[in-house]
């Protein structure tokens, strides 16, 4: 589904990603962990097409298409979704109107007609229940005045509504209390299938107790320096990132 080959990117001329390789297949959940400043969020932003990041090398293929050549909205319509670490507020735009607009765009790209108001509301109701989203929030302005946890849960509701092939969760667990964390994780677990895939970016192993990844990768200084299964996450939690750093430096010297 997704092949990242030697991806390099910089911000304001400063290199952040220095050659990332990753392959994600349908049905898989990959966790990307790493210390602060290792390039985790940059990777997510580059995949989503944020123009603040300049791709300086490498290639990314998504469902057989060159992802880096697509503008961000086409990536979204092709089925790539990013749950933002800091979802923005858009005053005056109702959550429902926004979801309907987004869904209509994505469906049109796939040659599907817009859902009727009735079908849409039916689907919204189902998904709200699935991800335990407070019904009163969908009538409010998009993220306006939402708590941090409500914003993150709204991201998961959007994920459920838009049904992407690949979802990237950028530190979705940050700032969540234990209940919200469990709700978000349950949502993801219910949404995972053999046809879609997830990349979960996180600093802590906490979320991975609820969402069991197939693979865990450690990103450090712009490269994936270690890959493994869920056990790697436990090991990191126990030993900290210094252990990895040291082992990398040891192998280099």
């Amino acid at each position, binding site marked *: 589904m997704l092949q990242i080959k030697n991806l390099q990117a910089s911000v304001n001329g400063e290199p952040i990603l220095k050659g990332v390789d990753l392959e994600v297949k349908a049905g898989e959940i990959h966790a990307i962990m790493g210390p602060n400043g290792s390039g985790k969020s940059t990777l997510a932003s580059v995949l989503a097409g944020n123009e603040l990041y300049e791709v300086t090398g490498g290639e990314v293929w998504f469902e057989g298409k060159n992802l880096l050549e697509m503008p961000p909205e086409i990536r*979204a319509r092709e089925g790539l979704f*990013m749950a*933002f670490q800091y979802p923005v507020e858009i005053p*005056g*735009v109702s959550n429902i109107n926004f979801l309907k607009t*987004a869904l209509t765009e994505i469906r049109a790209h796939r040659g599907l007609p817009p859902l009727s108001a009735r079908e849409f509301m039916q689907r919204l109701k189902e998904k709200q229940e699935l991800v335990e989203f407070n019904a009163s929030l969908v009538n409010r*302005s998009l993220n306006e005045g939402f708590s941090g946890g409500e914003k993150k849960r709204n991201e998961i509701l959007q994920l459920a509504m838009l049904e992407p092939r690949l979802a990237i969760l950028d530190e979705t667990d940050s700032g969540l209390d234990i209940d919200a964390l469990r709700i978000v994780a349950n949502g993801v677990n219910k949404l995972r299938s053999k046809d879609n895939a997830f990349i979960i970016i996180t600093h802590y192993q906490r979320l991975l107790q609820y969402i069991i990844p197939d693979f865990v990768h450690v990103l450090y200084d712009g490269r994936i320096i270690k890959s493994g299964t869920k056990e790697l996450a436990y090991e990191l939690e126990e030993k900290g990132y210094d252990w990895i750093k040291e082992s990398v430096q040891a192998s280099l010297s």
Partner: protein
Amino acid sequence: MPTTDQDILQKYSDQEYEFGFETHVEMEILPPGLNEETIRFISAKKEEPEWLLEWRLKGLEHFRRLSQDMPEWQNFKLPHIDFQAISYFAAPKKRKLKSLDEVDPEILATFEKLGIPLEEQKMLAGVAVDAIMDSVSVATTFQEKLKEKGIIFCSMGEAVKHYPDLVKKYLGTVVPYSDNVFAALNAAVFSDGSFCYVPKGVRCPMELSTYFRINASNTGQFERTLIIADEGAYVSYLEGCTAPKRDENQLHAAVVELIALDHAEIKYSTVQNWFPGDKNGNGGVFNFVTKRGICKGPHSKISWTQVETGSAITWKYPSVILQGDYSVGEFYSVAMTRNHQIADTGTKMIHLGKHTRSRIISKGISAGYSQNSYRGQVRVGPRADFARNFTQCDSLLLGDKCGAHTFPYIDCQNPTAILEHEATTSKIAEDQIFYLNQRGLDTEKAVALIVNGYAREVLNNLPMEFAVEAQKLLAISLDGSVG
């Protein structure tokens, strides 16, 4: 009823035919120029009573005085207008185009986006149409319904003929001919307009719109509207059209007067989309309008809602004089400018009565090289105990070559009044656009969504149908404004 339909069809095709005679039209045109003779000619042609002629002549007198010294307080340089170069009666009718193929493709594309039916497209673009069946039959049914309730809704010309006492009693009482140079000009030469009277205790059962009076569509230049809501009456009036309307007349100087008696309420909504000129600022309508309402009786209410996207220059301050105790004035405005458009718009709330309240919500959106000014005045007279005003005045900038300006004036002569003013200026954030991009919306759609959200508080005050059209209009007006 087929016979009625047949009659209407006949009537309209006859009219078109009539206008088709060029010689006939020629005879109805007055050569350019403005003097007493012009006024006498207009008044005679319209078979007006003597008092109205006198009134017009006073308007001319004041116009002559006021035009010696054109206003300079506005936030733009007033272009020179040669008032003697304008023809003040039956402006030449444009040559009818034969088909839509002759219409500017850019305008057609806009019609398409707005979803305007083909027949209406023709009418708006000035293409000859035999008759617009739907609108005509709808208009007829509506007229009958209004008659049942005793509501008078007709053209100003008809009102002068059939209800002279009402017109005489109220005409010029809110906007006198001496008010300002453009109001004086309008008083002198006003062509036609709408007249509405809602009798005591009657709630007008439908939104009144000029749209239903198709034959009045060529009276736009010096329009004069007078709406009276008698004690306990309610009326909602819609003016304008979301579709861009080509017009050969550069100067528009309309006057609107609203009068609300005891416990009466008038809601006046406008969507203004006159030709704004081309991308380089050439051409376009000068829209110099005087709109004012008076809450004459206690507990009366006047509410203005406007969406202004057209005209090269808009100068317009729909105001409310709050004379009756406990009366309420409201002003909700979205003014959007792009390319080289100029808007200097806002409101005046004049608190005279006790416990009077006013609310001003103004949302400016500027793009391109445009200049967008809010100008408002809140005045509290010495008798207006416990008057209250809330003003919120927001500006949104798209790009870095446009300007947003705010000129709020407050004049408070009563210590018990409470006045609040809030103002913000903002830009659309890159991360908002990216967020929407990431959900599948292209940048143009993203900006349109954000702008509509920004303007929602005002759009919500428009009647339902109008609101939907206004949203589309804002989105379309943004086309090409985002780079």
